[in-house]
């Protein structure tokens, strides 16, 4: 009986929602560019959605009326036992398991999966850098991708003109991006909030336009080709013992390079996060004036956060170019900045596991659902709404509680 009562409560909103959806779908699917109208496709898509949501509705009603308690009880018990058991396992075991899985990943996967994984890791590196600026220091940076571009072009130019190898150029790229961040940050970081967002957006575009138009240096929109991959000296036993240089042509070697870089980034960001400087950044995010009254040099620390963000973007940029062997300004458009920002916000501001998950989600899902590419933006919108409702602080919100490295109990 109670089931019918529960159903009576929701059927009205559900019906109105479905009719509204039909009204929205028809202009999208039923009006064709050549001016013809059709109804068939709209109704089939709608019918699928109706069937799907109706099943969800039935489950919801059953759950509300208590008919599912017989199933729910044991399931939640198993879940609780499982989570309790997982808490007894120390953190380093999880980290080790994740590390071993990441190491063995290329053994079980093909080119395509490795390619996607490399992409994810590049974005993890970018996301962790942006997290310092946005998540810790609270400065909304919409032009972050510019530093990625500077890192990328630094390696591309040094390598093609002077033949500087990747490993030497990697720190140079990072330092160049850091210096660029200081130059951009110095005049702009006096601004706060929305104003800073607009100015960084402008700087991001300026740097892309410079790359696009400085023909003599960057070859403009045609890009730079023939950039070397990372290489390495290795002991060769071919005729006696000698050292031989070889390039990382195999994709899984590139995967290991970026994996190593990401692990270094994670360690660095983690240490920054739980240091005195990290706490000062968070204090600035919370209340800049109060932080200043407590003796924090807010300007220097904001500049430092911005520079550190640029540094990690530079590392990611240099690797990106080494992997593609080609660079053009098209890779550094505003869409990329927005994408990285999405990863950071989706995963959870300030949370390292959250950002890794966010980057993985935003790269892997579009790949998996390639056939539904047309509906990508629709799915994006739906995910955003669901996130706002259920996980407003991100997939894995940052754990703020607990002690830092320099706290003694």
């Amino acid at each position, binding site marked *: 009986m109670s089931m019918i009562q529960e159903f009576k409560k929701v059927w009205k909103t559900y019906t109105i929602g479905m009719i509204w959806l039909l009204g929205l779908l028809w202009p999208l699917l039923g009006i064709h560019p050549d001016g013809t109208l059709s109804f068939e496709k709209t109704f089939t898509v709608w019918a699928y959605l109706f069937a799907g949501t109706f099943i969800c509705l039935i489950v919801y009603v059953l759950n509300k009326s208590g008919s599912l308690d017989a199933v729910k009880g044991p399931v939640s018990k198993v879940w609780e036992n499982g989570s309790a058991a997982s808490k007894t396992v120390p953190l380093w075991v999880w980290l080790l398991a994740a590390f071993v899985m990441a190491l063995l990943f290329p053994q079980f996967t093909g080119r395509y999966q490795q390619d996607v994984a490399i992409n994810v890791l590049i974005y993890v590196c970018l996301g962790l850098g942006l997290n310092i600026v946005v998540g810790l220091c609270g400065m909304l940076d919409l032009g972050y991708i510019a530093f990625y571009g500077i890192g990328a072009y630094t390696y591309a130019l040094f390598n093609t003109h002077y033949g500087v190898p990747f490993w030497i150029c990697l720190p140079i790229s990072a330092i160049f991006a850091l210096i660029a961040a200081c130059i951009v940050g110095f005049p702009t970081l006096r601004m706060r909030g929305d104003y800073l967002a607009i100015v960084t957006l402008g700087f991001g575009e300026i740097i892309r336009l410079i790359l696009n138009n400085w023909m003599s240096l960057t070859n403009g929109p045609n890009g730079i080709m023939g950039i070397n991959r990372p290489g390495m000296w290795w002991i060769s036993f071919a005729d006696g013992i000698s050292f031989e240089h070889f390039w990382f042509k195999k994709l899984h070697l590139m995967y290991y390079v970026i994996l190593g870089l990401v692990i270094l980034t994670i360690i660095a960001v983690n240490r920054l996060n739980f240091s*005195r400087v990290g*706490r*000062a950044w*968070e*204090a600035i*995010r*919370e*209340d800049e*004036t*109060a*932080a*200043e*009254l*407590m*003796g*924090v*040099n*807010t300007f220097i620390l904001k500049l430092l956060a911005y520079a550190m963000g640029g540094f990690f973007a530079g590392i990611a940029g240099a690797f990106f170019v080494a992997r593609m062997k080609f660079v053009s300004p098209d890779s550094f458009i505003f869409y990329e900045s927005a994408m990285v920002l999405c990863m950071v916000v989706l995963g959870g501001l300030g949370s390292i596991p959250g950002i890794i998950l966010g980057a993985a989600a935003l790269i892997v899902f579009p790949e998996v659902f390639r056939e539904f590419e047309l509906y990508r933006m629709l799915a994006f919108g739906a995910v955003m709404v669901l996130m706002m409702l259920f996980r407003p602080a991100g997939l894995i919100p940052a754990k*703020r*509680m*607990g*002690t*830092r490295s*320099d*706290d*003694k109990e």
Partner: protein
Amino acid sequence: MAEPILELKDVHSGYGSIKALKGISLKIYPGEVVAIIGANGAGKSTTLMTICGITKATQGEIYYQGNLINKVLPEKLPTLGLCQVPEGRRIFPRLSVMENLRMGAFYRNDTDQIMKDMQHAYEMFPILGERHNQEGGTLSGGEQQMLAIARALMTKPTVLLLDEPSLGLAPIIVQQIFDIIAQINKEEGTTILLVEQNANLALQAAARGYVMETGEITLEDDAQSLLNNPKIREAYLGE
């Protein structure tokens, strides 16, 4: 009397074209509690912000321990022993109570002494000790005010500037806060400059008082005389 520890000489300041302070002069002597009272918008908070250098003085001189501090950057002042508890508490809401206190000791490097001071803060404010792992923003108004004061004490101030410690608090909590202020002054010998709208309370806690009106100091006297002054009683004590 001894040399004043904090002295303002004809200080002007403002926000853009708005003049908030039109020539403030005041003297604070070591170890005393001084109150500045006045209505909304009289420039009380601006006075404190100007002393701390957040709002720049456009004219006049500010001396601290005999040194001109007009040009000293705000973040250097806590290292000199001058710290403010800003209006509306302004704790760091998403940092834990412990981290808020650690932020107070930001410029200090003596970890052992910081830990001792933190223990002392927890003894002075037992509620903060109970909640040391809780986020600052989840504390009640009174607890946040205690946290703000405790955070400022972590800088080891010689002069503590307090801006409206009674703002938005229940009378019983306000009494508690003022007891603590008296205790800080007595036990640590901290000089306190108190800005308050609650004139009655402030003048009872202070030894001397200044009355501010529209950016100027109109009256300066012993707290007791101010309390007995019929004009003050009429204007600020509602009689």
